[in-house]
């Protein structure tokens, strides 16, 4: 552990972070300001906003792993998640919940980071399956990450391989409760520990040819 911590510190100290993975031509297209944590509103206004957020959860339609197959029954008439105000959206700009469908290979992790950063806050992450918790079945695989929460902040983990749609609904309910209580501040956590997350991401994504700031 200490070895890898040292390695992360090294990467973090070397990072210049102004999209230095990009060519000069591409830099013009991307933003180069750091993100700022957004303070929640005070009092009843925030409570109202949180209630609205909890009642309208838009999932990003990105099936990152095999867990995505249980999203289909969830969307259709057997489990019908629309009843709870949950619906899929095809673009990350409009979505607010990212369901990581199980194991994330390094290649997908790159896209997960990018899609996550493109989502507009407040945004929430559901880690689906044991493989997002500790690697699950693929704990010794050379190509799948073991702990999702080292790369993006995770609000709710749903364990199992694969978790049933009922478990997913229960997970969504937990997430709703967390949002209403104002505990789901994953985005601000990400921004406050931005360097740590970036160093972790850069440790596994060896060919970092995408912008550091994806918003």
């Amino acid at each position: 552990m200490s070895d890898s911590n040292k390695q992360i510190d090294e990467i973090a100290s070397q990072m210049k972070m102004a999209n230095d993975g990009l060519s000069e031509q591409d830099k013009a297209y991307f933003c180069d300001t750091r993100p700022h944590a957004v303070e929640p509103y005070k009092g009843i206004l925030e409570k109202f906003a949180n209630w609205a957020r909890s009642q309208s959860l838009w999932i990003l339609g990105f099936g990152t792993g095999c867990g995505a197959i249980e999203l289909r029954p969830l969307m259709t008439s057997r489990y019908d998640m629309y009843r709870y105000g949950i619906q899929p959206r095809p673009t990350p700009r409009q979505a607010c919940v990212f369901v990581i469908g199980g194991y994330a290979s390094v290649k997908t992790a790159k896209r997960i980071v990018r899609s996550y950063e493109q989502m507009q806050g407040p945004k929430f992450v559901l880690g689906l399956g044991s493989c997002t918790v500790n690697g699950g079945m693929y704990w010794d695989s050379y190509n799948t990450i073991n702990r999702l929460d080292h790369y993006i902040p995770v609000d709710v983990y749903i364990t199992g391989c694969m978790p049933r749609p009922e478990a997913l609904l229960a997970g969504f309910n937990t997430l709703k409760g967390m949002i209403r209580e104002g505990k789901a501040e994953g985005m601000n956590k990400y921004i406050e520990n931005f360097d740590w997350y970036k160093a972790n991401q850069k440790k596994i994504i060896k060919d970092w040819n995408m912008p550091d700031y994806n918003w």
Partner: protein
Amino acid sequence: MNDILLKALYTLISLFVITNYGLLLGGTMARVRAKVQGRIGQPVWQPYIDIIKNNFKRTGIYHGVMFYLGPVFRLAGGLGTYLFIPAVYGSVVFANFSFSGDLLLVMYFIFFGQLGMALGAGQSGHPYSPLGVGRGLAQMAAFEVPFSLSIIAIAAQYQTLSITELVAAQQGGIMNWIAFTNPLAMIAAMISFLGMSMGNPFSVVIAPQEIPIGPPTEMQSSFLGMLQTNRAIFNGAKLVLFMNLYFGGAASIWVMVIKTFLIYLYTVIVGASFPRFRVDQSIRFFLGIPTLIGIAAVVLQML
């Protein structure tokens, strides 16, 4: 001076009613669609929560001035369409700004919103946005043909381009409706209404499986909230327009609710039972049989 203030008050009431009606109608129709699919569906008030949530988003991305103005133009198009249609016949509150040539202006405003959106979507820089806009404008040009022919036919029939006068001419019994006095014009217009409401099989603009999701790909937060509000108003306005033109208008607000609900139901049922055309097929479709029906309606009036 009091008259102006009163008119402003009436307009606000009218807008308030149509916005809420449009939102509730959207929520209801989502449930109808769900019933066709064997589900329960989302709550009727879900569109309200979505709009509130989108407006409470903490961050937002903008891509330039036109990106800001796109949703504004779209909203202006929706408002413009509605404000020149008399929603309830004989009512002072819901008469809006109807005047003697308003039909032409309304047709212009139906186009206007999409053009404004094109500018905003173009500046967002996402490759799917201009694709969607291109599809939308091409299809719009196609379904305007049977719709315009239908309008020409009924304008020739009643010698007027004022919606109020057209509604007045249809009063006094179901057989006076243009749907029965000029069925060809009604058929042509109702087919182009399917294209106008962007449901299947003409949902080429927001085709999630093809170009997710077309023009509003980059729209988020309050931009999206504004677009959703506009969709409610625009939907309501179009329904009221078609009710006025072909189905005898409405003498009271309840008649309006029933008639517009049924017209909307028709598009939803068609939408739930068809896949989507490709854009070239859609254009060919509109320029085929519906256009011929429209021409037949015009020719019949000229004879």
